[in-house]
């Protein structure tokens, strides 16, 4: 444990890393808060700019952006009643009524402190659980990885509100896009249509920027005329008595955040909604009725969504399976830097894990500082008209797509995926599973073939191993439950109970 300390404190001791973490957190808060900008979009674009950097520099910046962005979404939910990020949807339910009562400053202050608290709980869980999960993951067979990857894609597609069939389609589309190029095992061309360009595959960074950047910009064009309301943002720092009162609730909802965040595919948005539901069911006498400005309605989702950040890192670092769309993009960043997240990463390069934990802890400290200051300036920035903001995002996206390999073709891919992503979004498909599919596709392909080869190509033996190996059976049961719980029959059955 003591050998981990120098790596843990690396970001704290190196002025450049300290600056990058601070800058990332600061930028993340604004990115998360400005409706139309998302953390996933920002990290996707950022990857293309940081791929030449030292891996530590890139991870420090990304950690700050991730933590800051998850928190930042609450700011616009409170001030504008527009969640800056999906994880802040529940926050607006009570945050905006509080702002309308002239308590926006108090709401932001309380949100900041409980977010930081949740963040620490998540990081602590990451530090304690990841080494154990990683040791367990060494026992995973290829078929287990195959099922975990499928599970992750399904969860992202279905839990975030869409239909199961649409989630499956989007995930499979991602796997398909990810399999374009030469087969990594036999070097046979797949879906290349005789094009030399396609043999090296489709850049997933260009696809990510297209699906999360361009598609989002095009979808935002439907809401160009939304106007902001001026809010009172004085009296920000919450009283000690108020914090003490909500500590037990924040602890419970942070635990929910960690567990939900650690599930493959379920991120801060689901954690926040579940925590809000938990608060509604368990708090007998809220400060005001829920939905009318209850402080409990802020404490629960905000502590949970930041705790989910640490939780989401657990499957990402230990299994190489992303906890949500943002960690899927971060996995992409790690691959670009030559790292392979998974159990071996923890064994071969434990310093990187502790560096990551240290960077997240530092970012969480910066979150407290930036969260409680500069709110008046902030209120002005989030009011930036979309007519100015959206073209700027587009220019950044184009630079990002070009920068990855200085190839103009990637910019066209980005636009193509952006247009497809726009139609998918409009017609109720989630784009998260597409990216997850692209990232996890090669792992699934390899795991399937390894599992089948180890079963000597015998389909019955291959299928039987899912039931005879205890670990595989547990994952299969969880996967099957996810599928069954999304069916109409199950929902009807629960409705009757």
């Amino acid at each position, binding site marked *: 444990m003591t050998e981990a300390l120098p790596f843990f404190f690396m970001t704290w001791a190196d002025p450049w890393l300290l600056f990058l973490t601070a800058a990332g957190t600061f930028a993340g808060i604004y990115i998360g808060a400005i409706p139309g900008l998302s953390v996933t979009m920002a990290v996707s674009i950022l990857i293309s*700019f940081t791929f030449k950097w030292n891996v530590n520099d890139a991870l420090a910046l990304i950690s700050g952006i991730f933590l800051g962005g998850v928190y930042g979404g609450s700011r616009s939910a409170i001030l504008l009643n527009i969640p800056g990020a999906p994880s802040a949807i529940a926050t607006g339910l009570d945050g905006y009524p509080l702002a309308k009562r002239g308590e926006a400053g108090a709401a932001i202050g309380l949100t900041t402190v409980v977010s930081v608290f949740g963040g620490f709980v998540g990081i602590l869980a990451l530090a304690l659980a990841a080494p154990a999960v990683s040791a367990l993951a060494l026992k995973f067979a290829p078929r287990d990885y195959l099922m975990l990857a499928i599970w992750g894609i399904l969860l992202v597609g279905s839990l975030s509100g869409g239909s199961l069939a649409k989630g499956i*389609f989007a995930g499979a589309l991602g796997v398909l896009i990810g399999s374009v190029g030469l087969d990594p095992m036999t070097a046979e061309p797949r879906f290349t249509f005789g094009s030399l360009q396609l043999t090296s595959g489709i850049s997933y960074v260009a696809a990510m920027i297209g699906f999360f950047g361009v598609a989002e910009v*095009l979808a935002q064009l439907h809401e*160009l005329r939304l106007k902001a309301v001026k809010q009172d943002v004085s009296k920000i720092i919450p009283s000690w008595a108020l914090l003490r009162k909500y500590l037990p609730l924040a602890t419970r909802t942070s635990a929910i955040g960690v567990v939900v965040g650690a599930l493959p595919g379920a991120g801060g948005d689901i954690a926040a909604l579940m925590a809000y539901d938990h608060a509604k069911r368990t708090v007998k006498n809220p400060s005001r009725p829920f939905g009318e400005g209850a402080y409990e309605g802020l404490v629960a989702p905000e502590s949970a969504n930041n705790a989910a950040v640490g939780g989401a890192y657990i499957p990402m670092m230990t299994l190489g399976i992303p906890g949500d769309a943002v960690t899927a993009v971060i996995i992409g960043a790690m691959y670009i830097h030559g790292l392979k997240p998974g159990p071996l990463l923890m064994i071969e390069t434990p310093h990187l894990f502790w560096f990551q934990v240290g960077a997240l802890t530092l970012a969480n400290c910066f979150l407290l500082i930036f969260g409680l200051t500069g709110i008046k300036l902030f209120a002005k920035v989030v009011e930036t008209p979309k007519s100015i903001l959206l073209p700027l995002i587009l220019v950044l996206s184009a*630079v990002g797509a070009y920068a990855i390999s200085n190839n103009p073709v990637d910019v066209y891919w980005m636009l193509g995926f952006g*247009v497809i992503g726009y139609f998918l979004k409009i017609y109720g498909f989630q784009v998260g599973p597409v990216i997850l599919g692209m990232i996890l596709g090669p792992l699934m392909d390899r795991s*399937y073939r390894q599992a089948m080869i180890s079963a000597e190509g015998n389909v019955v033996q291959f299928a039987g191993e899912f039931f005879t190996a205890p670990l595989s059976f547990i994952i299969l049961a969880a996967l099957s439950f996810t599928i069954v719980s999304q069916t109409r029959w199950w929902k009807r059955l629960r*409705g009757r109970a």
Partner: protein
Amino acid sequence: MHNPRLRLVGELSFTLLLVGFSLFMLWQAYAISKFESITSAGSFPMFVTALMVIAGLIIVGQTARSKPLPGEAGESALQQFTRQITPGVVVSFTLSIAVYMTLLGVLGFVVSSYLFLVVSMWLLGSRRVVLNLVVSALSLAAIYVIFQTVFSVVLPTSSLFKGFMS
């Protein structure tokens, strides 16, 4: 809990298009290594594209069963599509992006981005031309400095003004 979604105009055609695309890709996946072996290069893509076909068909069924979102009185399907799915601002902005991408290689990053920013801000309803010109110049200067110096990013260069400006 089941929340029936209203069918948007063009949604059924879109889902049918997805099924058609999935079938085409299934055929392409089959062409990779046919039924050579269960672990061949084409086996997993075949499984994935077959899954896309099945999921696509289910989506078509679900979409066909859902009630259509009613349009405005006397509005044709095309008019409804243009209003709800591809409003003028989406089409014009997408076209301006396509033109911008083409110009990137011809005029270079600075000139083409400046033109794109000024034109698209105006297209999206920001009618204060001087403000657009100033905001575009300042933000572009910031992007240029940050990405060239901090991120060491190579920005698209001009084929027209080679050696003169990027």
